[in-house]
């Protein structure tokens, strides 16, 4: 099955997630435990000069990843590129939506390459991060899930 091909001006199906304190704390312990910091502990946040904990930038990056994985499949996980700047703090209780807008479709080495503006915005419509992403045209395949299933057997 072939996924729909993107063209300039297309909007990706957005992803919306609520940012919760317990998830922010757990995020800091995932893969490597980073200890208490301004993303997980109010006292650490105050020591760092802010009045409350803020979600880490990589937490926003995780939402942008979901947007790109869902919309591009293997075309994202094999050869995807992203460049993002964090431009407004994200707090527990915020509702973030990850967005993508196709800005250009070019050809590289005989293959289509899709360029996008990507950003997260909060419940007030304020951008909290913004940047660009690049990937091949969307693939219907999610081979990383096949791999996980194969390893589970």
């Amino acid at each position, binding site marked *: 099955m072939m996924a729909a091909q993107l063209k300039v001006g297309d909007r990706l199906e957005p992803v919306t*997630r609520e940012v919760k304190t317990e*998830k922010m704390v*757990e*995020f800091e*312990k*995932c*893969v*490597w435990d*980073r200890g208490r910091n*301004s993303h997980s502990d109010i006292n650490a*946040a105050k*020591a*760092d*000069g*802010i*009045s*409350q904990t*803020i979600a*880490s*930038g*990589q*937490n926003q*990056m*995780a*939402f942008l*990843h*979901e947007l790109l*994985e869902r919309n591009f499949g293997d075309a*994202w*996980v*094999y*050869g*995807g*590129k*992203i*460049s*993002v*700047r*964090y431009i*407004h*703090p994200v707090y527990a209780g915020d509702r973030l939506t990850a967005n993508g807008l196709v800005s250009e479709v070019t050809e590289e080495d005989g293959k289509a390459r899709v360029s996008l503006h990507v950003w997260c915005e909060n419940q007030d419509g304020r951008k909290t991060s913004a*940047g660009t992403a690049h990937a091949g045209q969307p693939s219907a395949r*999610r*081979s*990383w*899930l096949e*791999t*996980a299933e194969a*390893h589970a057997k």
Partner: protein
Amino acid sequence: MSDSESQFKVWESIPLGDDLGSLDYVLTDKMVSDYRRVVDNSQAAYPTVAARHPANLFYRKYASVMRVPNMGHDSEYFNPPITGKRITITGRIADKYIRRGNAYIIVEATAVDEDGRLIERSKLVGCAREVGKEAAHDNIAKKWGA
């Protein structure tokens, strides 16, 4: 040396291209399932996002003198990581610059698994904050009243 130059003394002492060494870990089923749970995405491909490879390598060497709160991130993905494989990351100081009165450090980390599969290459855009001199998130507090 002028006052504006001397305020970045520690930043200046960190050499461009500095080798940050390497770290490794085995990506376990628990790490993957924990990551997928906390980001509300049961099919997430890259749990390494949470590992923040560049920051971990940087702090192993410079945590006592410098903080680099994350102002941005550039990443390129080559192959999704496979559970049970050992991942080795290597890092370096890829760039340094001063912009609008703030000193920045770009930390690059490359992740490869035990079979030699290139997983990802990431760059942390860090706002350089000297430990004991200024709070790590002073800039955020001033700009947004956080």
